[in-house]
């Protein structure tokens, strides 16, 4: 479970860029929560705070009750992140890439091997396992990056624009994976600027614009609140008011 309370983060010399400006929400276990917002809304910054990579200027966030700042190393053991940067080691094989991160998470010996093998199977990487990742396609790289993020079997999973650059078959396969993780009771937080992505997958939606939460709730709640006929219309009307466009 992820709880975010009034998080703020500024960048720039005088802190003139308010990337995230007082965001609060909760992402429960066993559900996929979507962070929806246009480019520059603060999605990546928010996820980086939750991934313990950056320290917020104000507010707090907790993962399963552990503070992301003061207990960041404990948090890292309980979270898997598929970030914006998903570089692999090109001279290592798919299996070695995944196993390296397993070892960094403290897995060893037979336990590490078993975990890596099962991930290779569930993600359909079996045939690629012993090839160097050098010549992998986008979709193949993504699968390895997911395996790497999940190698320590974390209860919380953050995904930053995971469908970027993927073809339709890879996107469908990814959705299946995420639904499987939800069924296993994981807490998933998924960011995207594509409304259809979020609508197709997420149980609840947090709409961000200019670093603030514009609305949150289930798709049905958002539609009901705006009185719009579809989620897309609801999204546009919510964002429209946030952007200052009629």
């Amino acid at each position, binding site marked *: 479970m992820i709880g975010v309370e009034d998080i703020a983060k500024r960048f720039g010399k005088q802190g003139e860029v308010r990337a995230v400006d007082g965001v609060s929400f909760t992402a429960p276990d066993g559900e996929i929560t979507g962070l929806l917002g246009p480019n520059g809304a603060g999605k990546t910054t928010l996820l980086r705070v939750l*991934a*313990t*990579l*950056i*320290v917020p200027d104000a507010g707090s966030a907790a993962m399963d009750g552990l503070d992301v700042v003061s207990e960041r*190393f404990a948090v*890292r*053991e309980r*979270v898997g*992140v598929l*970030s*914006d*940067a*998903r*570089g*692999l*080691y*090109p*001279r*290592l094989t798919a299996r*070695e890439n995944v196993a*390296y*991160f397993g*070892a*960094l*998470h*403290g897995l*060893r010996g037979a336990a590490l091997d078993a975990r890596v093998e099962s991930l290779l199977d569930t993600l359909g990487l079996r045939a690629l396992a012993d090839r*160097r990742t050098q010549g992998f396609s986008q979709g193949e790289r993504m699968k390895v*990056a997911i395996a*790497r*993020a999940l190698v320590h079997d974390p209860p919380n999973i953050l995904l930053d624009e995971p469908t970027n650059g993927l073809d339709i078959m890879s996107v469908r396969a990814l959705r299946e994976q995420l639904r499987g993780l939800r069924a296993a009771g994981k807490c998933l937080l998924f960011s995207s600027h594509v409304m259809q992505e979020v609508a197709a997958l997420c149980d609840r939606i947090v709409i961000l614009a200019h670093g603030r939460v514009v609305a949150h709730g289930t798709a049905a709640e958002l539609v009901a609140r705006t009185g719009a006929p579809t989620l897309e219309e609801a999204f546009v009307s919510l964002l429209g008011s946030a952007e200052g466009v009629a």
Partner: protein
Amino acid sequence: MNRILAIVRKELVDAARDRRTVLVSLFSAVAGGPIMLVLLFNFMATQADRARDITLPVAGREHAPALMSFLEREEVKLTEAPTDYEARIRRGDLDVAVVVDGQFEHDLEQGRPGTVRLVFDRSRDRGRPIVDQVQNLLRAYNRTAGAQRLILRGVTPSVANPLNVEDVDLSTPQQSGALLLFLVGFYAMFAGMIGSMAPALDTSAGERERQSLEPLLMTPARPLEIALGKWLAVSIFAALVVGCTLLLFYLTLSFAPLPPVGLPFLFGGHEVGRLAVVLLPLVLLFPALLLYLAARGRTVKEAQANVSAIMFVIAFVPAASVFLQWREPAWIAAVPIAGQFTLMKLALRGEALPALQVAGSYLAPVVITVLALAGVTRLLSRESVLSGR
């Protein structure tokens, strides 16, 4: 600890699979030294040959028959000097020529010294051994002829020689020996640098450029563990390259068919061991320093620019010590690179290493290594590490 080992193992596998890195290290450091060594040996051998059989172009041989037959007795081959000998010497086609003055015989008859001109170009090193040789021969003739005259007048020749100068050259095969010494030391050190450069760049700036740094920093691995793991891996790689270089020097000097010029230094198992002891702190220092400098660059390209600065220092310090022919002050042993260089020269002369001096040479590299690693750790702990600012 397990995490550090995991990082070391991964980095070593990664570096070993980087074919370009491995080839560059092998060629520039490991093979480069012995190749230079063979070239230098051949150069020394030809120098020795040139000094042995002298062919001397002479203009006006007929004016000094006695001198000519003296030179021929000393196994100098005399040839008629070409008319444009001055131009040829200037161009470097000819090393030296002797011109006998037309008045030579006449002057001698009158009891005046006869004039012989030795024409050469001092700016050309190649001809120096021959010029020296010819000069010595002419002086020898001067002495012999002078002594004969004194004897004719009933005076013992030693009256005219109040000074007896004997050459005692302590540097054995002198210049070329010093050059060889410099070469071996330089290449051994260079190997440590070359061996650590590519892996250090790849594992720091390369890691960021490939966007694998962010996932790495999101693991529970502490920044210090990451810094130590990468440093150990690069150090092991550098140590392997240095080890291979020393081994190849040893094999070349022991078994390669080198021309017999006489080795101006020792290079046996003992010396290899001593060199390893001397070079160890550098094998730890270079990777730490390179990692720190490379981590400060946003891209591999920027990192390379940062790194080439120490490259220059490493090349410059030993070269300066060769050209500034000063007697090294005692504190030089504590200066990294210069200190190692001084100790390497001792080792190659077959002398035992003074323990205190070795300890002194470890001090600065260890301190700088610790500081550099602390710097890398600090850089990795900063939020800005991801953007490289």
